[in-house]
């Protein structure tokens, strides 16, 4: 085989591979575009499309391998056994089929969750309030996403991984609660501005505009204060406030645990170690005081 012949074989193989790869990505990008256009309303059809596309993509991938195989067969004229190559390709094909079945299952689970995520966006699109959206998100987090952080960890780094995952989980929970609290705190601001706007329109219509611009500010501040006072006494707000504080504390503890892990390699005591010491000192001091009192009752 001349160098030119070798070059032709290689060029053909690369050309075939390039065409097939191009087809693969074109098809994949079309799928994504379709998905983004239709999401979230057609999550179900999207799931089917993706499934079909993935199947087609595996076919394309198989073709790539076959092209390469053809090339290799040609190359084999100078030493390789075509039958061996064919068997290897068949094995690869079978492996891919098994792999596809497995990924189909994972993909199905993923798409089910995607559908639920779609519901959150539907709430956003529909007349649902901000609270509905946040609750929908918190629900899907608790039911679906949170499980990921609780997948059992194994091996030497198991405990560290677990603490890392716990911190991510606690952060997500805190974040969700904090956003809801901030949302609550924003409502009086929005309401007071809306009410102020209406009042201004009415005042303009009636021709009674305050000369002093301070008056506008005072009017708005009164409205804002009254909206806040109303909000702060509501059970919804107090509940979210309590949950946010608790979630923040839980996140702090999870974060501290990771920091303590990293401190183990440094020659300094950790908070937990110091806490044990503090507790002992506290108990000792109480004990000494009792003993002193028993010895000198007049003191």
């Amino acid at each position: 085989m001349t160098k030119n012949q070798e070059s032709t074989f290689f060029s053909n193989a690369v050309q075939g591979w390039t065409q097939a790869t191009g087809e693969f990505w074109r098809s994949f990008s079309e799928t994504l575009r379709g998905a983004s256009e239709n999401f979230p309303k057609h999550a179900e059809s999207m799931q089917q499309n993706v499934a079909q596309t993935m199947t087609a993509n595996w076919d394309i991938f198989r073709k790539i391998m076959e092209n390469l195989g053809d090339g290799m067969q040609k190359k084999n004229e100078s030493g390789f056994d075509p039958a061996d190559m064919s068997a290897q390709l068949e094995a690869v094909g079978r492996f891919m089929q098994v792999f596809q079945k497995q990924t189909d299952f994972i993909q199905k689970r993923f798409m089910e969750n995607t559908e639920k995520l779609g519901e959150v966006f539907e709430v956003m699109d529909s007349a649902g309030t901000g609270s509905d959206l946040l609750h929908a998100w918190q629900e899907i987090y608790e039911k679906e996403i949170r499980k990921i952080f609780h997948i059992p960890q194994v091996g030497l780094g198991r405990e560290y991984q677990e603490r890392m995952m716990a911190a991510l989980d606690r952060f997500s929970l805190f974040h969700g609660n904090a956003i809801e609290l901030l949302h609550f705190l924003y409502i009086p601001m929005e309401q007071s501005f809306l009410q102020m706007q209406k009042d201004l329109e009415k005042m303009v219509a009636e021709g009674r505009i305050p000369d002093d611009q301070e008056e506008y500010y005072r009017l708005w501040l009164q409205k804002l204060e009254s909206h806040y006072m109303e909000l702060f006494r509501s059970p919804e707000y107090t509940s979210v406030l309590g949950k946010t504080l608790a979630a923040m504390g839980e996140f702090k503890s999870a974060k501290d645990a990771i920091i303590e892990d990293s401190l183990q390699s440094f020659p300094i005591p950790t908070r937990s170690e110091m806490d044990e010491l503090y507790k002992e000192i506290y108990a000792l001091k109480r004990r000494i005081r009792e003993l002193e009192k028993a010895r000198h009752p007049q003191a």
Partner: protein
Amino acid sequence: MDMGKLTDKFLTDLENNTEKTQAYLKDACDVLLSALDDNIASTPYEIVWQEDRVRLKFYRSTAKDKAPRKTPILVVYALINRETMLDLQPGRSVVEKFLADGMDVYMLDWGYPTQKDKFLTIDDHVNVYLDDAVDFIREREKAPCLNLMGICMGGTFCTIYAAIHPEKVKNLVLTVTPTSFDHDKGLLHVWMRDLDADSILKNYGNMPGDLMNFGFLLLNPARLMIDKYRSFLQNLGDKAFVENFVRMERWIYDSPDVPGETFRQFIEDLYKKNLLIQNKMQVGPHLVNLQNVTMPVLNIYARFDHLVPPAASEQITSRVASKDTKDLCLDTGHIGIYVSSKYQNEFVPTISRWLLERDAPAETASLTEALEQSRPEEVTEGIRKEKKSHASPAGKGRGASDKKSYAAKSPGKI
């Protein structure tokens, strides 16, 4: 008039005020770049006793025309914020006014709790630190008992102390002291029911001062996070205002953490279970019984107090066994009582006179002479109400005091 005209009016006003604005900016720069006197707690004192982080400050009266008091007074501040509030600045200082009236003052400084202190209970604060400080003063002054004045949470501690050690307390003065918690009058009382105090203790150790301050700001964000700073910006050219404002800021955000176990017990036993007023609160080995409070009690609280509303303070005098109790309600807020010149001039002489009436000066003068010496002209019309009758306003209105005072201009937390 349409909205266009409204906009036009706004812009015209803006144009007309250009010179004024420039003058304001110049004044503001001059003030901010000048040396500001924003020191707090400048009255001289000495530390006469210390146990762990807790110190006892002693302020000696130098008033020459006053007869010395027979019974020393110990002022117990809350664990939240610092006792420096009682000595904010010369001329606006509760401590200074007590000293001018011939009273030596002992004041407990709780210090800054660290993680080491997170196991400390209310029992430790009341029956160890406070009791040891009281014993120290009794020995130092050769007095069998002393006058105890509590402020806010410090008042709650004093009430508990007086119920456990009545023999060591001659008179009990409570100011803006929460003792009753079973109501929805203050937002804190509403919010605390949903607070998981165990979780705070577990996750933070101590209750962080910054977190508490954030909670206090949330009690009235419109006033405390917007209006207050707008007022500051408007008065940047006024040096006295800026100095007062910065002093208050320094005090407000000087917030030690609260020892975790004490905080937990305060929330659970008081805010959630309201045990103190029902005589069911357990402090260490002692069951606190308010029927043991037999000494005279003066109870001062503030009508516009959003942290400790009157409903939290006014019941105590009817629950103690003492026959000599008085309530005084002032028309101000939680802090205004101590930092507003107007209310300082009312409430300090009232306390001083009330104590003097129950404690003739040591052998040098008769009670009548001593009362005359005690600047009766500064004492307002006196005690507003007697036991079991509720208070009447003591002032004309909130914020009507000293024109320059930030406290008067910034109701809300103040």
